[in-house]
């Protein structure tokens, strides 16, 4: 089944809500706790990336008994150097975002750690598409 959520840039008051709904769905579907944890971390970090960096986007979860796919598509500045963005601690978040406790440069590295498969496509000044999969064993 598919769950799809609209995510707005800079909307910190509702940030994380889509990830919470995905978690509830995974729990109802009886996914393994380990699968659930990995998928929540990916969904949350991907959602936050849209909130912090992009103008707007969508967060999608495709759930099957054997696999959870998280897809985050946004319209935004894009990522010029993906390998650099994957490094722990590297962040382009402006100071006011960091002061809120976000933008520590752990978003993509955390996603990478949790995902069994990961693909990121980005075009500067257009947007980013992140696709991650977690296998339910």
């Amino acid at each position, binding site marked *: *089944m598919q*769950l799809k959520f609209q995510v707005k840039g800079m909307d910190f008051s509702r940030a*994380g809500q889509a*990830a*919470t709904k995905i*978690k509830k*769905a995974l*729990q*109802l*579907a*009886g*996914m393994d*706790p*380990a699968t*659930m*944890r990995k998928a*929540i*971390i990916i*969904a*949350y*970090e991907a959602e936050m990336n849209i909130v912090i960096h992009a103008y707007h986007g969508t967060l999608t979860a495709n*759930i*099957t*008994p054997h696999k959870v796919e998280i897809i985050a598509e946004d319209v935004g500045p894009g990522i010029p150097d993906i390998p650099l963005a994957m490094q722990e601690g590297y962040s382009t978040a402006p100071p006011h975002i960091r002061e809120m406790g976000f933008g520590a440069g752990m978003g993509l590295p*955390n996603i990478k750690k*949790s995902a069994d498969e990961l693909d990121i496509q980005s075009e500067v000044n257009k947007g980013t598409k992140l696709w991650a999969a977690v296998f*339910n064993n």
Partner: protein
Amino acid sequence: MQQYFHSVRLDEEKCKGCTNCIKHCPTEAIRVRKGKARIIEERCIDCGECIRICPNQAKLAITDCLEKLKDFKYTVALPAPSFYGQFKPEVTPSRVLSALLALGFHDVFEVALAAEAVSWAIRHYMEVCVDRPRPLISSACPAVVRLIQVRFPSLLEHIIPIESPMEIAGRMAREQACRKTGLEPDEIGTFFITPCPAKVTEVKQPSEGRSSVDGAISMAVVYGALLKRLEMPAPYPVAPRASGVGIGWGRAGGENEAIKAGSLLAVDGIHSVISVLEEIERGGLTDIDYLEAQACTGGCIGGPLVPQNPFVARVRMGNLVKLYSAGEPGDFPRDFDYYRLKTPIPARPALTLAKDPQVALARLEEAERICAELPGLDCGSCGSPSCRALAEDIVQGYARRSYCIFELRERLQQLAEEMVELAQKQPPAMGRDWKQTRDGGGETD
């Protein structure tokens, strides 16, 4: 035998079938059916929120009564640290302990003392096991532990594998009593004086094997019986052995104050606990070493079975902590294995829609569809806590679409309109105008 023991029960006579409790249950474990609240056993975590909210006092906690003391040759009272905060300043801990003896117990062992020992064990574990996932979560509040089993199974590995102060107190008390009396361990009864139903359940249905505590008696019951005996002479004088460090465990933040190492976070109140656990679940708070989490607002002094106002108790407890702050650390085993939880805490997947993931997913999809069509008012009239919960109940076969009074009303309205329309139709033989039309005739409306 039922699968789960629960301390929280319903008084059928008092329950009016209002929907206050279903709305406040953190695990959506209550439904109203046939005018009475029903608890879904595998979901209930015995937090006691429903006891607090029920306007008709229809929710109660089953605890042991003082009569049970007669089942043992020698009995030891285990007062929870929060017990000290229930009395006026002139009623010193020493008088409280003496009165417990006057009440019929042969001896007293303070849980606060065990709390000091557990504080040591937690500090030790944090130093030695640096590779464990952070933050570690306290195992002291049984309602929080069960909340994690039901709603946050992926966080079970965060729970520190150390027994609760109550369990440790029961063990230490029994060992001490055996030495003192020469009796067999089975002949000694240990009784926890409990501020909450969750602890009763922990005693009756421990996560591993058998509890070291033989019974749990409501603090409110003991308090009432004790007030009459405060002036009575004790069979022998008892002095409190616990220091402020252990006594402070009875209020929110006290556990962390006792640990005093690393970066510590304290959260109290079940709904606040849930939001912090959600944050940990999505990978946050890794900079915190230890989380003290208590289901009741204010900590154990805010328990549903506690007689005194928790804010008053908090002040009194604060004064006692200061008064006994100079106390020497108690005499307890400095061997970590003494405190270690022997078996891992299992998950309790009570929220899944079906055992088979394929079926569960199909039901989930169906529930999403139904939920989108329901009015979304979360009124509770259907007996489920929200429209979403009703949709989940429907796909599992526990409820019907017609339980929604708004949908029922709409359908009745449609039906009524149809009936009016039908009522206006009459057969031509009963006097309706008959117009001959060019192509052969028929009725016109």
